[in-house]
């Protein structure tokens, strides 16, 4: 049987009157790649901080490797690699030294550190930059170095808080490849993101959270099947007359309207031949927007 790595049950956390996490329950089993998906302010980072023992839950239970998160000791911490959202690399040290010094924080023997640092620099394609100043690295390289740093003690569980936010497509693809390689090594991965394509591509299971609550969870396919119709038509305005009579679920997003349907032929027949439209399969983004709404966050 697979072991449970993280078990949250009715997890809560408030800051004063504000309740950031309002009773979240989920489970992460060994070897799974789990996505924690939610808009800004959904409670993702707070949940991560609780898992790392940096913030104590105000209610519910949260066990990490079978131990309540706020009491985790060195043994459990040594099994977790954290990639925080904000860059906290050591700017006073070189690329290589960042990894070496981090290894000493784990109490790793010198020769193990040297061997791992070389391996990790190659794995994250940073070997050529190893003597560089961290301050001189691009955003993508910094991210790669933070991921390498999180792997210095060969953790069982890797936690990544929005690891690709703000990166260019090439940098994102490289990170995705590396994360999948880690999964194939048997590591358990917990990823937060607000990029749907990322979650859809990488995760075995996705937990959608918003407003401090779990809205739904399942594999990307399950979530799509459960919440949205199979086909999406994006129609430019003005919309053809009489389309509302087809009684298809639609959403107005400005100059375009989205129509969701399981019967693509019926809608296509209705559209005139010269109309410009986009017909695509429903994706996780449609699920996400249906579940969390289109209202802008952090206003």
């Amino acid at each position, binding site marked *: 049987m697979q072991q449970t790595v993280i078990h949250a049950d009715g997890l809560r956390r408030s800051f004063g009157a504000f309740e950031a996490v309002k009773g979240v329950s989920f489970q992460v089993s060994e070897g799974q790649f789990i996505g924690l998906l939610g808009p800004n302010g959904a409670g993702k980072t707070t949940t991560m901080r609780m898992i790392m023992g*940096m913030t104590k839950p105000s209610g519910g239970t949260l066990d990490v490797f079978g131990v309540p998160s706020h009491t985790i000791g060195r043994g459990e*911490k040594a099994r977790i690699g954290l990639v925080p959202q904000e860059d906290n690399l050591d700017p006073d040290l070189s690329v290589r*030294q960042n990894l070496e010094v981090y290894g000493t924080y784990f109490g790793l023997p010198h020769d193990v550190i040297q061997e791992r640092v070389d391996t990790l620099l190659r794995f994250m394609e940073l070997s050529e930059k190893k003597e560089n100043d961290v301050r001189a690295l691009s955003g993508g390289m910094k991210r790669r170095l933070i991921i390498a740093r999180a792997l210095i003690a060969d953790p069982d569980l890797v936690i990544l808080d929005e690891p690709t936010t703000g990166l260019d497509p090439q940098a994102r693809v490289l990170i995705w490849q590396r994360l999948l390689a880690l999964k194939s090594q048997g590591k358990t991965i917990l990823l937060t993101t607000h990029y749907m394509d990322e979650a859809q591509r990488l995760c075995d299971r996705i937990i959608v959270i918003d407003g401090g609550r779990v809205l739904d969870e399942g594999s990307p396919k399950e979530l799509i099947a459960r919440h949205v119709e199979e086909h999406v038509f994006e129609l430019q305005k003005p919309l053809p007359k009489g389309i509302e009579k087809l009684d298809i679920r639609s959403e107005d997003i400005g100059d375009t309207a989205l129509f969701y349907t399981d019967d693509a032929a019926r809608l296509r027949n209705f559209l005139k031949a010269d109309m410009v439209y986009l017909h695509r399969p429903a994706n996780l983004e449609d699920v996400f927007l249906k579940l969390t709404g289109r209202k802008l966050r952090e206003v």
Partner: protein
Amino acid sequence: MSTTPERGRQTMLGGIAAIWMRHYRVWLRIFWPSVVSGILNPILFLFAFGFGLGAVVKQVGDISYLHFVVPGMIANAALFQSSFEASIPSYTRFRIQRTYEAMLAAPLFFREVVYGEILWAASKGVLSALCLYLVAWAVDGLGSLSGALISFPLVALSCASFASLGLVCTAYARTYEYFSFFFVFWITPSLLFCGVFVDPAAYPQWLQWATWFFPVKHLIEVIRPLCAGLSVDWTMVALHMAYIMAFMFICAAMAARRMAKKLFD
């Protein structure tokens, strides 16, 4: 990667040592600026006051002005270096670079971060003081070599106390500007009113009393007779050192409490 992963075995002492070594590696990377501020600067002060003012003042009580001012300079260098290192540089690691958060994501505990910071900051004070001892010895500025040797560990202990106060400021500062309090109410009075250059007996009575708050005044009171080769009241030495240590424990506890609140909330 190996099938049985080597995860290391961290201990409290190992953790403190790892943090100290991190600071040491950074220090090596910025070796020359560190040497200029930590070693050359106090030596300049020693020469300026030891010889400059010494040419005018000549004698304080039974000892030469050079013998009078050397222990003051040593204490002041120890004070400045250790409490400064725990102020703005620690603040930068704490709030700007988020170095402590990175440390805490590794198997290090918060108390090791605090002890590591204090130990490192104290080490910088010890290094400065040591260099001053050597320079003073070379220019015949120590009245008693054995007394100076006894005073050195007392200076080293006091460095931890000075560092703890710096860390209190780090814990409470909201921005860099808040360190004006640190300079105006700590560094400057420690330098001017605690007997570094002049016998504090010259100041008005109330000021003499008020400045007993500053641990550096106690330290100077202890090491001046030791370094100059005067008679030493060991009971008073014990009392002064007790004050310095009590100051350290209170400051370290205050700093730790406040920092924990900011890190773990």
